[in-house]
């Protein structure tokens, strides 16, 4: 296991990392780091690509490459970030390219984290000002270069669609032609930014920068990296969380043709081979005896039973207003419900993988190069450096496309990176394999059983209502594991025992209720947990929004009308609620056998309401036919990508709405691959309609916020038609209709 105490993130990250859904704006301090002049001064014969600044490179062939400090794992950041640059640069869209920036926290920190990393739907939000400025500055340098070359005043020069022109003299030049000279210009300290009314790319549809490569097999993922002499490793990990290697017999594994070595590392025993197939056969032939003394041996049923017991007692306060006990005593009616959520695996399509190449001299390790769909470059660099006895800057990270992540690749433990580095170090210590690059691959079984799940949660809610149906008191008790405890983020994100990610979406419930108590019991199990697309909101949105519909039903109120009444002080929640309700025809009669349900939820400072339309057959079987979503994520950068992300977020959330999660028996995960850890397939995908609220507010994230409302909207639809309650995910495949 990685020793967390040894990584220290930069001071700035102690501020408000993923500061939680509750924040209304990221409140970023925009830092802007130019490449040191020496780096610019190096080289640069006219035939070479020129760095205009840390984010923009212009080549003689007139391509403009944006160095993306954010991982492209599907959310369209390469396109979104390039859009911002192209806008201020006045580039032509066809000349734009993007690639992963190197690992360098000083230059490429996520300004919301204070370290380099992607997550929390922050990519656009934290880059918007920074890249506008980078683009505008590079444009000013191109203009200055043209002015000098043509001996005309800079203010007479115009730039449009990648062409720099001087009307008076009729001169024109491409960015590529001017880049070499422009790179030597002093960047202006202040540059004017465009008036948003003049935007030509931002807010419009531009073609995704990565579509073509991803449609013809040429897009490069970590799994595709091939280096001379590269070996492939598979790691046999313990069957229970916390178990360790007692002994192993590598005899049969080593006899498999193609197997080169078998090495023990802290997380298990690795079989290193010439190719994947040999490594797989080798691993199957390996026998390992495990020491389970420290292992988690409980089953998930037992853990849940313990959570339910715990929920009977008050937890630590996450929010306290008024006096719920007094209000309950006076209430005309008390409504109570509890909700359960299983562990969930992220299961990105590309299982975790990393390529590690050591630079060795004799037995000494001089440096290290890593290829990965790297989501947390700063901790990954630090952890790899620690394993290898290097300084972080001696670890070079090449960030490639990632075949999905949904949070899985963002761990401060750097689990798969550390495994790769340890294996590289172990084989590097031996003469025959010294310096050989190694690709560590996780199989799907490794992925499903490998932990770092969305934690299991149990919620208990209690509301008091008066005779008029007003909610007078709301008590919400949450029981589950902390994602943050034991990580370097603990200091900032766990306050007075409350992990902000355990209660986000609940502690900041927007509804106007005079007496409110939100409490948390943080539990410990050996099962490793992690953020999963939309983090705390994956369970808090369901518990709060379904409970609200239960209250609406118990008090004879329309779910939309009740929400409107409770959201008068939250215009952005109200805006999406009304838009979704209107577009879905809320209140209009539905065909027989069709049901509607709604949910509204803010996460990562973006507001989303979804109306689910569900068909219910007389035998109780049901299907989600359509989701109408309304989103407010501030200034839309690329509406088509926003739509795509909402579609994707809905599909991801719906998967966990209808498919079972991860369960454990005696500490062992019971699922192993897509046959028993099922995920949403095409026939289960509803139609999706996405409506975007026009806005000039600062842009906020969209990778995650589409996910939380879908499960409660679907449950609420079923509840409306069956008069049954749905208090656990996944929802039952058959909804029983009351007589």
């Amino acid at each position, binding site marked *: 296991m990685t020793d967390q105490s040894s990584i220290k993130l930069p001071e700035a990250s102690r501020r408000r990392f993923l500061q939680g859904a509750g924040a209304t704006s990221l409140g970023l301090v925009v830092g802007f780091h130019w490449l040191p002049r020496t780096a610019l001064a190096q080289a640069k014969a006219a035939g070479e690509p020129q760095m205009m600044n840390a984010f923009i490179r212009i080549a003689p062939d007139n391509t403009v490459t944006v160095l993306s400090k954010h991982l492209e*794992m*599907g*959310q*369209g950041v390469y396109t979104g970030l390039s859009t911002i640059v192209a806008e201020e640069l006045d580039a032509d869209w066809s000349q734009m390219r993007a690639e992963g920036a190197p690992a360098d926290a000083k230059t490429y920190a996520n300004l919301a984290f204070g370290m380099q990393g992607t997550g929390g739907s922050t990519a656009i939000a934290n880059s918007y000002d920074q890249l506008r400025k980078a683009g505008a500055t590079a444009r000013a340098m191109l203009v200055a270069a043209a002015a000098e070359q043509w001996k005309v005043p800079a203010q007479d020069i115009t730039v449009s669609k990648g062409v720099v022109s001087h009307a008076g003299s009729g001169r024109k030049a491409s960015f590529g032609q001017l880049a070499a000279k422009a790179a030597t210009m002093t960047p202006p300290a202040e540059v004017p930014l465009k008036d948003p009314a003049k935007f030509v790319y931002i807010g419009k549809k531009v*073609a*995704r920068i*990565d*579509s*073509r*490569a*991803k*449609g*013809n*097999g*040429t*897009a490069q*993922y970590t*799994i*595709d990296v*091939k280096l001379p002499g590269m070996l*492939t490793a598979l790691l046999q990990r313990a069957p229970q969380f916390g178990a360790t290697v007692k002994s192993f017999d590598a005899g049969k594994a080593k006899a498999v*043709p193609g197997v080169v070595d078998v090495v023990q590392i802290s997380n298990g025993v690795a079989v290193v081979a010439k*190719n*994947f*197939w040999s490594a797989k056969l080798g691993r199957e032939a390996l026998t390992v005896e495990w020491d389970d003394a420290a292992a988690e041996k409980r089953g998930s049923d037992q853990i849940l039973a313990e959570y339910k017991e715990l929920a009977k007692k008050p937890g630590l306060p996450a929010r306290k207003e008024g006096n719920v006990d007094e209000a309950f005593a006076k209430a005309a009616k008390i409504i109570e419900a509890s909700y359960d959520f299983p562990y969930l695996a992220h*299961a*990105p*399509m*590309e*299982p975790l993988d990393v390529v590690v190449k050591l630079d060795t001299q004799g037995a000494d390790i001089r440096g290290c190069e890593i290829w990965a769909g790297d989501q947390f470059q700063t901790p990954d660099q630090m952890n790899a450096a620690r394993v290898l006895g290097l300084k972080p800057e001696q670890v070079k990270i090449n960030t490639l*496309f*990632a*075949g*999905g*992540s*949904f949070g899985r690749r963002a761990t401060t433990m750097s689990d798969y990176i550390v495994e790769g580095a340890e294996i590289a170090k172990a084989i590097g210590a031996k003469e025959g394999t010294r310096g050989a690059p190694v690709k560590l*691959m996780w*199989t*799907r079984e490794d992925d499903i059983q490998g932990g770092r799940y969305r934690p299991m949660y149990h919620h208990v809610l209690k509301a008091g209502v008066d005779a008029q149906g007003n909610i007078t008191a709301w008590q919400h008790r949450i029981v589950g594991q902390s994602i943050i405890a034991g990580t370097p983020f603990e200091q900032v994100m766990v306050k007075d025992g409350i992990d902000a990610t355990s209660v986000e979406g609940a502690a900041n419930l927007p509804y106007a209720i005079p007496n409110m108590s939100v409490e948390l019991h943080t539990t410990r199990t050996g099962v490793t947990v992690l953020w999963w697309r939309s983090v705390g909101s994956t369970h808090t949105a369901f518990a709060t929004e379904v409970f609200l519909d239960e209250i609406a039903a118990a008090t004879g109120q329309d779910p939309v009308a009740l929400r409107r009444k409770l959201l008068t002080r939250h215009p952005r929640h109200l805006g999406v609620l009304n838009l979704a309700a209107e577009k879905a025809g809320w209140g209009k009669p539905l065909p027989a056998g069709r049901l509607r349900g709604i949910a509204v939820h803010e996460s990562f400072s973006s507001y989303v309401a979804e109306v689910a339309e569900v068909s219910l057959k007389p035998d109780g079987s049901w299907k989600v036919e359509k989701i109408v979503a309304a989103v407010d994520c501030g200034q839309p950068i690329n509406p*088509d*990508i926003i739509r*795509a992300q909402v*579609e*994707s977020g*809905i*599909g*991801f959330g*719906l*998967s966990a709405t209808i498919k079972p999660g991860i369960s454990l028996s005696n500490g062992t995960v019971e699922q192993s*691959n*897509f*046959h028993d850890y099922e*995920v*949403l*397939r*095409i*026939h289960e*995908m509803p*139609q*999706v309609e996405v409506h975007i609220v026009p806005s000039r507010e600062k842009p906020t994230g969209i990778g995650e916020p589409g996910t939380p409302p879908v499960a409660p909207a679907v449950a609420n639809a079923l509840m409306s038609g069956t008069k049954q309650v749905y208090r656990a995910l996944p929802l039952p495949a058959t909804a029983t209709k009351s007589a």
Partner: protein
Amino acid sequence: MAIKFTLNGKPVSLDVDPDMPLLWAVRDEIGLTGSKFGCGMAQCGACTMHVEGQPVRACSTPLSAIEGQKVTTIEGLGGKVAQAVQAAWVKHEVAQCGYCQSGQIMSAVALLSDNKKPSDAEIDEAMQGNICRCATYVRIRAAIHDAAKTVRA
């Protein structure tokens, strides 16, 4: 004994474990990496290739089973149907992480090669074996309908 087959129109001969799945033979031995690994047990479709024009899960097809046959991967796609499908994929901006998309496209091309006007139900049937964790299904469906129109034109 070497196993011989045709890959993207070129003869190949591989002297490897005949049980080695076609996917790993093509990726690791031949070096074509457009076909992906997602599950290794015919559950996800990321590895989909065409063998004699039919979509197969290459992760679960031993090399010995394709002796003498014609294999096509995403890299070897060509012709009217493939062009229509790949153009529709770009037009509808289907790909997100993109990792499943080689497999999706291979399945879609196989579908449209047999059926120039698939219904939604037929698309569901043909594409159900291809998982997309980014849930790009809405656009996959739209792109297939669109490509079908081009193919019919």
